[in-house]
């Protein structure tokens, strides 16, 4: 079933809101990667959240959930639903890792001081569905609320659930989001695994090189059935699979936004599938993290809304494929292709 994209909310290292994201797509630079402890990191802020949620109400809400709330509120505002009845809005959130900082803080307090000194607030926020619960409570959305964690495939997997809710008529709208946060423990692990590759710059088209740079952020979409038009375009199809088990044949006429984010392990799949076809990649604008597949989806939606496919932010070609040139999108389809480890893939096809 087709889904219409009615609103977008987004926060990343480029700033927050669709206008900031569009500006990043237009300029195409990776200036937003900030150095932390001599390593580049893409960090996201929560500026503007107090426009929607009183500061006191945020005191038991961690950074992960604050990014989530900001994205969700912005998406509702963008869809002109802030003042609407929200009793039939579902919440579906995709996250590769969940609230890592809170989880590790809770575990640290348990190990350092024992169970009697473990914060109940940290515990409640470390539960993976906590962010979705905060959205439902603060925004009074009383329809189904769900968090899907499936690492790199979290976004297409959660999107299938959103699609199903709409097809079943269980909801009128879905606040569909993708969120991940930067975490020093995770960054330490990444540096152990990838070494100098974590130092950047992130080069999505250098498929045989490790160049991933950790990032974080939240992106949300207001999705509806496709009966009454769309502000940004339509999600036509969501496909999940494993290329090694059932080889993927790419649609011939689609333009592709690939989720290549500098992970060498996945690079060969993009090289093989694209086989010389030009594609767009925007990971240098927001970094490498599982929920970044949602940022690719936002790039596709903004492109459809603007009827312009923006230039890739890394113009360096690996020689196998090349970064696509900016072009008008009068007709035709866009597709977001994301590979995970072991050949898992998610393909999201969109049109205007």
């Amino acid at each position, binding site marked *: 079933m087709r889904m219409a994209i009615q609103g977008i909310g987004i926060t990343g290292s480029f700033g927050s809101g669709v206008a900031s994201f569009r500006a990043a797509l237009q300029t195409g630079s990776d200036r937003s990667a900030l150095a932390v402890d001599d390593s580049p990191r893409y960090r996201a802020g929560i500026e503007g959240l107090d426009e929607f949620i009183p500061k006191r109400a945020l*005191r038991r809400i961690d950074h992960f959930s604050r990014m989530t709330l900001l994205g969700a509120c912005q998406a509702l505002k963008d869809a002109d639903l802030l003042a609407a009845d929200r009793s039939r809005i579902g919440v579906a959130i995709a996250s590769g890792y969940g609230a890592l900082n809170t989880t590790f803080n809770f575990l640290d307090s348990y190990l350092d001081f024992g169970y009697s*000194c473990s914060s109940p*607030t940290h515990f409640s926020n470390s539960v993976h569905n906590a962010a979705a619960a905060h959205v439902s409570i603060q925004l009074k959305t009383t329809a189904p609320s769900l968090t899907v964690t499936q690492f790199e495939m979290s976004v297409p997997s959660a999107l299938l659930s959103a699609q199903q809710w709409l097809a079943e008529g269980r909801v009128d709208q879905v606040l569909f989001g993708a969120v991940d946060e930067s975490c020093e423990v995770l960054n330490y692990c990444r540096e152990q695994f990838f070494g100098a590759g974590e130092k950047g710059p992130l080069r999505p088209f250098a498929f045989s090189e490790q160049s991933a740079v950790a990032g974080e952020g939240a992106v949300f979409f207001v999705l509806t059935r496709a009966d009454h038009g769309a502000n940004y375009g339509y999600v036509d199809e969501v496909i999940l699979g494993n290329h090694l088990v059932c080889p993927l044949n790419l649609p011939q006429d689609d333009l592709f936004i690939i989720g290549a984010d500098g992970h060498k392990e996945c690079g060969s799949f993009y090289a093989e599938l694209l086989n010389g076809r030009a594609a767009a990649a925007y990971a240098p604008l927001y970094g490498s993290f599982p929920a970044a597949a949602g940022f690719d989806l936002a790039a596709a939606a903004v492109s459809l809304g603007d009827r312009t496919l923006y230039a890739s932010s890394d113009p360096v070609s690996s020689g196998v494929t090349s970064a696509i040139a900016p072009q008008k999108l009068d007709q035709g389809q866009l597709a977001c292709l994301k590979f995970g480890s072991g050949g898992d893939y998610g393909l999201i096809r969109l049109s205007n």
Partner: protein
Amino acid sequence: MSVKEKLKKVLIEDLNLEDVEPEEIEDDMALFGDGLGLDSLDAVELVVIVQKHFGVEIKDMEEGRPAFQTLSTLAQYIEERMA
């Protein structure tokens, strides 16, 4: 730093009272309800805070209830048991 000063600091930090300055917490201000505005979940956090930062264990909430009235009563409770 006195117990009261340290208490104000850790209350703001550990309970994320971002909109409160230490000097705004008066010694005789009620911690719960209309005063500082803490609630029942904060009471559980307070037990953790007192043990973590002052090494004083509150084993029984009935015993802790009078101590949780104001900053002064809580500071006094801690000082008596630290001594």
